[in-house]
């Protein structure tokens, strides 16, 4: 729980608004054969004593050309899932296919078609930007020139520094280089494992815009992220926790599924306020959310009831307002009920 709160706090709320505005539902169109099918995948690590069940029967489908987000806290199993789908890891059970190819049997063919950007920067730090890009183009049997238009938008931003070694780049530039390298062979499915972790708010926004424009080129994109506010940028999101998928829906669908009344409360002494709110019978859940506390009420309670309760407890001017649930509120509710 504490972890969850931390995740929310880390996120700048400013981002959410802008992201929600851009969000549009236009996932497409041409052909509805699923690009990625995950069916009851299980994976465990370790031996008898310290056995970790990383994936406990995960299933979902991703349509072609979709921007699909996998959201979950650290340790939810996101990376394991990506490693299985990119044929780096063998699943213990279940089946999965990428682009119609089985991840266990047809792994060789899959490697030609997927792009993978691991969470950790893993290009050659002692090679320059240009050398890295050329190297990855070559081992995919293509050239930078052939697919330049695909990466142009991203690569042109770092091209002025192309003779700089990758190890000497800033975080944002490393990320752009990694994305360019993952794209250089024109993959049909792109896997991005926590691409925005450790990146500043502006670069994060920029990065999501890059993904939107890639999506327009028809590439299926799977992104994992621990930041819930990024969910709004995806066509559909899967919420993962402890190796299980809690829900798969469009961001709107997730919000619509939130039925309980929700209020935002603010006063001078926020810590005391939170404690008092949690003691109130009408409160199902209360948690800090930026400069407010978000309070999920049981059905039948309302903002005015909360106001009344607080005034009884010597709060003079508490600010209480009814708000529409945000995607983060929905995820917090889902995680707590799981």
């Amino acid at each position: 729980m504490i972890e969850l709160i931390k995740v929310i706090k880390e996120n700048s709320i400013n981002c959410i608004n802008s992201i929600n505005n851009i969000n549009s539902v236009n996932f497409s169109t041409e052909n509805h054969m699923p690009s990625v099918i995950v069916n009851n995948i299980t994976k465990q690590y370790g031996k008898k004593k310290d056995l970790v069940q990383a994936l406990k029967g995960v299933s979902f489908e991703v349509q072609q050309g979709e921007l699909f987000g996998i959201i979950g806290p650290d340790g939810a199993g996101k990376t394991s899932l990506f490693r299985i789908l990119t044929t780096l890891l063998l699943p213990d059970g279940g089946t999965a296919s990428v682009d119609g190819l089985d991840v266990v049997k047809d792994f060789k063919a899959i490697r030609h078609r997927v792009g993978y950007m691991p969470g950790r920067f893993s290009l050659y730090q002692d090679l320059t930007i240009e050398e890295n890009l050329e190297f990855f183009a070559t081992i995919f049997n293509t050239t930078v020139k052939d697919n330049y238009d695909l990466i142009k938008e991203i690569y042109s931003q770092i091209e002025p520094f192309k003779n700089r070694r990758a190890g000497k780049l800033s975080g944002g530039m490393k990320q752009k280089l990694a994305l360019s390298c993952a794209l250089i062979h024109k993959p049909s499915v792109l896997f991005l494992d926590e691409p925005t972790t450790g990146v500043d708010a502006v670069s994060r926004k920029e990065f999501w815009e890059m993904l939107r424009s890639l999506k327009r080129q028809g590439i299926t994109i799977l992104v994992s992220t621990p930041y819930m506010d990024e969910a709004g940028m995806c066509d559909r999101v899967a919420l993962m926790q402890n190796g299980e998928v809690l829900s798969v829906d469009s961001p709107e669908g997730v919000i619509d599924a939130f039925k309980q009344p929700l209020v935002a409360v603010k006063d001078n002494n926020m810590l005391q306020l939170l404690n008092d709110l949690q003691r109130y019978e009408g409160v199902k859940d209360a948690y800090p959310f930026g400069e407010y506390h978000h309070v999920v009420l049981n059905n039948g309670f309302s903002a005015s009831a909360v106001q009344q309760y607080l005034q009884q407890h010597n709060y003079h001017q508490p600010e209480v307002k009814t708000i529409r649930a945000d995607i983060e509120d929905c995820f917090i509710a889902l995680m707590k009920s799981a």
Partner: protein
Amino acid sequence: MRTLRFLLQKEFRQIFRDPSIIRIIFMMPSIQLLILPWAADYEVKNIHLSVVDHDHSQYARQMVNKITSSGYFILQDYSGSYNNAMEQIEHDKADLVLEIPAGFEKKLIKENESTLFMAINAINGVKANLGGAYLRSIIQDYNREVRMKWIQLPRFSPELQIEVTASNWFNPLMNYKIFMVPGILVVLVTMVGAFLASLNIVREKEIGTIEQINVTPVKKYHFILGKLIPFWILGLLILSIGLTIARVAYGIIPAGSLLVIYTFAAVYLLAVLGLGLLLSTYTSNQQQAMLLSFFMMMVFILLSGLYTSIDSMPGWAQVVTKFNPVTYFIEVMRMVVLKGSGLKDISTHLFTVLGFAVALNTWAVINYKKRS
């Protein structure tokens, strides 16, 4: 082929961009070859001798003079008490005590024989053994001299004497450097071949770049060849540097053909590179690889016949040396450099090492997985 070319290009770029690797590659052989052979010498010198003289006769003094003038011994002290000499040994100031009994000269002249007592500090086994042997042979020599003086030359020698003279083949002056330098060079080539290569691969694991390579359609053998070839070349380069140093600094010119050395080295490097590759598949970070390399290197050096003769090892150790590729290369190096052996003479060695190369590489390739 194009992929392989690019893998190689990348590998060389990385190697030559890492200044510490360059330094290691060129400095290590130079320093080791210029310094180690001077120290790694079997000849025991500077043996500290403590003489306890109860006799104070002319013969005793002559004998001690002869001993100290041999160059092997340093006269630590010359006293009249055995206890005093023992103290010197206890303080590690003396390695040998030679006690000359009272009436040594008198007995020798009157009774034609006399005894001496020798006490050896055996903490350093090699020094004790050799020191004792040197001292004994010097005393025997002195004994003969004394006898020669007394014997009035008769017409026919009344006693038969077998005198042994030795000549050292292939290394007439018994110069240990000629013997050690090729051996040290082999160890150097092994280190570069096996351990630099394994560290390099493990480093890719550690940084995570191997993951990025593994999702690409790069073929297993391409990747492995891309790793082996650069270090194969580096190994041969080090061998060349080493041979040059041996020639310039020690005047060691191989009696045999360089071609034989390079042919063997080429095959040998395949074997040790296979070993390096194998190590890298069993370790997941540089620290593990380093420790494992260290352990292997110790075993390799001590059981290779570099310092100690294999023939004097116990049976089981001799069996172990048969599985140590370093043994074969050291033997071949010494055979070619000192004796001038040709390809035909080393063919058994060559094929054995080729066998190692095939076995180790196959094992490594099977064990190297692109997925877990």
